[in-house]
């Protein structure tokens, strides 16, 4: 059994009793037929007629409401337009078309808000709240009911205040919040009693009775239902009477007084039939079914059950339709409310569509900007990363190139140094008039130069090839300084001379140093040992001589001389540094003074061609 929400039908009329309906409608219809003057009165009459027949003849009610809208628009009567919209909404509501009902209530509200007519607005708030209550959207319903209450109080309309209070009470009771709900009922009832509005008092008493029944407080429930019954009789509110009688039936059923229960239920059902109120009839049959079941009158119980089910099915179908449309409605309500709120907020008459379009455009611009920014960023990041890689590669290439160039420069420096030393020797032969020696020396020199030029083009050459050049150099020097020195070259058997690579001319400056500074000053028996040994994964190249060496007691002049002449050694050290940087190796050059002579060790990482 659902509660009766009090619906404000119309501000033009006070509450109208059921028995007055047909009479009232007839008289209004007569007025409409006789008077065709287009004015606000015709609108009022159309609306009253529409309202009176909205339950019984919804099509006619709708036609009249439409005519009211047109007429009010034609005479530019704002209040009339609002009222006509509200009436349309009510007809839809009566037809359980909640979507359209809400649509027109909101239109009515929009049209009415301009008029500052709080009473009109209040009634619309109530209608909107009723729809939310039907949808069990209690919070929104409460919001609208509170607006309704505030508006009603502000225009000092006690009838509306009672309805608002009662409806708020309904919501709280629906939510099983009795402690908050009951005071609303009591307040509503107090005002209703004070103003002598028995019709409403009856409805509120029913609501109270139902609430107490729910709480199994049968005494208070019975008390309220009996009050309602009396008030309903006095105010000819048959609907309230039907509800009160059914309620009493339920109470006696619960109290196991089945005869009394049956009597009240049958009376309720009888009146409900007269009203053609399906929902109330179903409630009556339900109560009767339970009573017959307890009384073990199964045939009667079956009859009651069958009737109840048949009636309920139609009710359920209605409620299901409502439920199905619920989601769509919720969406549309929100949309409509939003547009109203926005319109309200902006205080502009921009249509919702324009606002929406505006928003779409704005959103599109924002989204577009964001997309452009993000893709730009992505492209930038991607590009930068790619560029970084390319740059890094380029940088390392440049570095290698720079080191290669440096290396080439160092190798190139060897050549002029060597050339001038040799040219000096040749000049020496010419000075001595030894043409044969000069010629031989020149030929050998040319051959060595060729070798050096060829080798120095390469970063690394096989040990065998470098030793060949080194040997040729020593032959040349031996030719220049006869009987000064002999040489010996030893290569470890573990080293593959053809396959092991060393930087070209890496030893030549040390050999040159030994000859020029160690052995040239020695009278005889000079010797140079060149040995290539494998030590782990290093190749140790040793140049040793038994020359005079460099001693602490050497004169400054001698040291300066040695410095000047050891340009090749400096270059070699630089070359080894560059090699270490390029290849990340740990090649070293160590110089040591021997008791007799000097010893240079060049340690290179073993580097095989294959």
């Amino acid at each position, binding site marked *: 059994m659902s509660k009766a929400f009090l619906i404000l039908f119309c501000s033009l009329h006070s509450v109208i009793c059921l028995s007055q309906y047909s009479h009232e409608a007839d008289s209004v219809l007569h007025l409409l037929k006789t008077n065709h003057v287009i004015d606000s009165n015709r609108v009022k009459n159309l609306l009253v007629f529409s309202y009176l027949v909205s339950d019984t003849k919804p099509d006619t009610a709708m036609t009249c409401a439409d005519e009211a809208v047109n007429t009010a628009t034609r005479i530019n009567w704002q209040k009339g337009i609002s009222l006509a919209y509200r009436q349309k909404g009510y007809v839809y509501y009566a037809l359980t078309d909640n979507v359209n009902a809400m649509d027109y209530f909101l239109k009515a509200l929009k049209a009415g808000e301009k008029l500052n007519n709080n009473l009109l607005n209040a009634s619309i708030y109530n209608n909107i709240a009723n729809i939310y209550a039907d949808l069990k959207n209690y919070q929104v319903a409460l919001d609208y009911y509170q607006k309704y209450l505030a508006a009603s109080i502000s225009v000092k309309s006690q009838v509306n205040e009672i309805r608002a209070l009662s409806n708020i009470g309904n919501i709280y009771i629906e939510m099983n919040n009795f402690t908050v709900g009951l005071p609303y009922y009591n307040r509503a009832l107090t005002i209703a009693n004070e103003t002598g509005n028995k019709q409403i008092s009856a409805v509120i008493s029913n609501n109270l009775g139902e609430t107490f029944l729910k709480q199994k407080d049968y005494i208070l429930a019975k008390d309220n239902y009996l009050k309602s019954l009396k008030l309903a009789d006095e105010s000819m509110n048959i609907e309230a009477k039907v509800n009160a009688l059914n309620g009493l039936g339920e109470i006696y059923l619960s109290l196991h007084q089945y005869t009394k229960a049956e009597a009240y239920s049958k009376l309720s059902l009888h009146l409900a039939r007269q009203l053609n109120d399906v929902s109330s009839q179903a409630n009556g049959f339900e109560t009767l079914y339970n009573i017959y079941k307890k009384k073990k009158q199964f045939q009667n119980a079956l009859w009651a059950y069958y009737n109840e089910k048949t009636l309920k099915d139609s009710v359920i179908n209605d409620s299901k339709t409502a439920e199905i449309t619920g989601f769509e409605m919720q969406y549309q309500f929100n949309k409509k409310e939003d547009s109203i709120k926005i319109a309200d907020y902006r205080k502009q008459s921009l249509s919702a569509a324009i606002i929406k379009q505006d928003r779409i455009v704005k959103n599109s611009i924002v989204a577009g900007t964001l997309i452009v920014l993000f893709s730009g960023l992505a492209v930038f990041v991607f590009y930068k990363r790619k560029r970084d890689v390319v740059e890094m590669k380029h940088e390392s290439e440049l570095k290698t190139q720079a080191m290669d160039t440096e290396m080439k420069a160092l190798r190139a420096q060897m050549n002029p140094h060597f050339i001038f030393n040799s040219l000096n020797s040749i000049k020496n032969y010419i000075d001595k008039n030894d043409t*044969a020696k000069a*010629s031989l020396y020149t*030929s050998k020199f*040319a*051959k060595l130069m*060729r070798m050096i030029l060829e080798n120095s083009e390469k970063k690394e050459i096989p040990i065998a090839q470098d030793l060949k050049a080194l040997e040729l150099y020593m032959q040349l020097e031996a030719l220049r300084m006869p009987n000064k020195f002999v040489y010996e070259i030893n290569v470890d058997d573990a080293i593959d001379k053809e*396959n092991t690579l060393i930087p070209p001319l890496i030893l030549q400056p040390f050999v040159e140093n030994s000859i020029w500074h160690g052995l040239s000053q020695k009278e005889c028996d000079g010797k140079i040992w060149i040995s290539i040994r494998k030590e782990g994964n290093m190749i140790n190249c040793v140049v040793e001589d038994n020359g005079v060496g460099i001693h602490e007691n050497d004169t400054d002049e001698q040291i300066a001389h040695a410095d000047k002449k050891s340009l090749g050694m400096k270059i070699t050290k630089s070359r080894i540094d560059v090699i270490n940087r390029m290849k990340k190796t740990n090649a070293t050059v160590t110089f040591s003074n021997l008791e007799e002579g000097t010893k240079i060790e060049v340690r290179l990482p073993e580097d095989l*061609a*294959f």
Partner: protein
Amino acid sequence: MIRALIIDDEEHCIEGLQNLLAQDHKNIVEVAGSAKTVRDGIGAITLLRPDLVFLDVQIGDKTGFDLLRALPEIDFEIIFTTAYEKFALQAIRFSALDYLLKPVDPDDLDTALIKLSNEKARKNTADKIDLLLQNTQKSDGLLKKIIVPTMSGFEFIEIANIIRCESDNNYTTIYIKGNQKMMVSKTLKDFEELLSGYSFFRIHNSHLINLSYIKTYNKGKGGSVTLTDETEIEVSSRRKEDFIARLSALKFS
């Protein structure tokens, strides 16, 4: 006694060589004459009919090759002399002919004359010169054929037909298109040097391959290559980087 002719456009070169020969080889070599131009050279050869000609590569604005082309028949040995002509040197080496670099090192002259006394080396001189003249005529700068000494004599090989060379100590086996192979008494290093500037790469201590015959490269530590004749050869891990760089260069060329 070998009757020799020296053709060189520079007097001091002629004198220098004459001195060396007179100094160390007067018992075996007699310098019959000399010429300073191609025209004089042709005349001297016709007139003197030498056994050996020391022939300069660059003679004025002409070359020793021009001189040889002008001769109807070559019935003498040739030792080229040159200061530094890279392309000419390669052509001479391709033809397995001998040369001396100026100024001439006495030791090198000794070696050249000893080689000449070897009967076998004197065979096929006309063929070698033919090849030399062929090769030096090519305008694109890339020589087509080499001549290699074999057990039986000499053999011409089209460079483009060499698939690979494999080392066997002091010998090298050359694999040629059409399932031919040839053992040559030269080291792989000799071939590596000879064929530098061509599409050859020494991928391994024992292997020199023609890059044009690579079918696939198989990744690995050094990886390996499969050649069109289905032989698979390991790439030395130390050569991998250079090898791939070379392949990439080939790809974009």
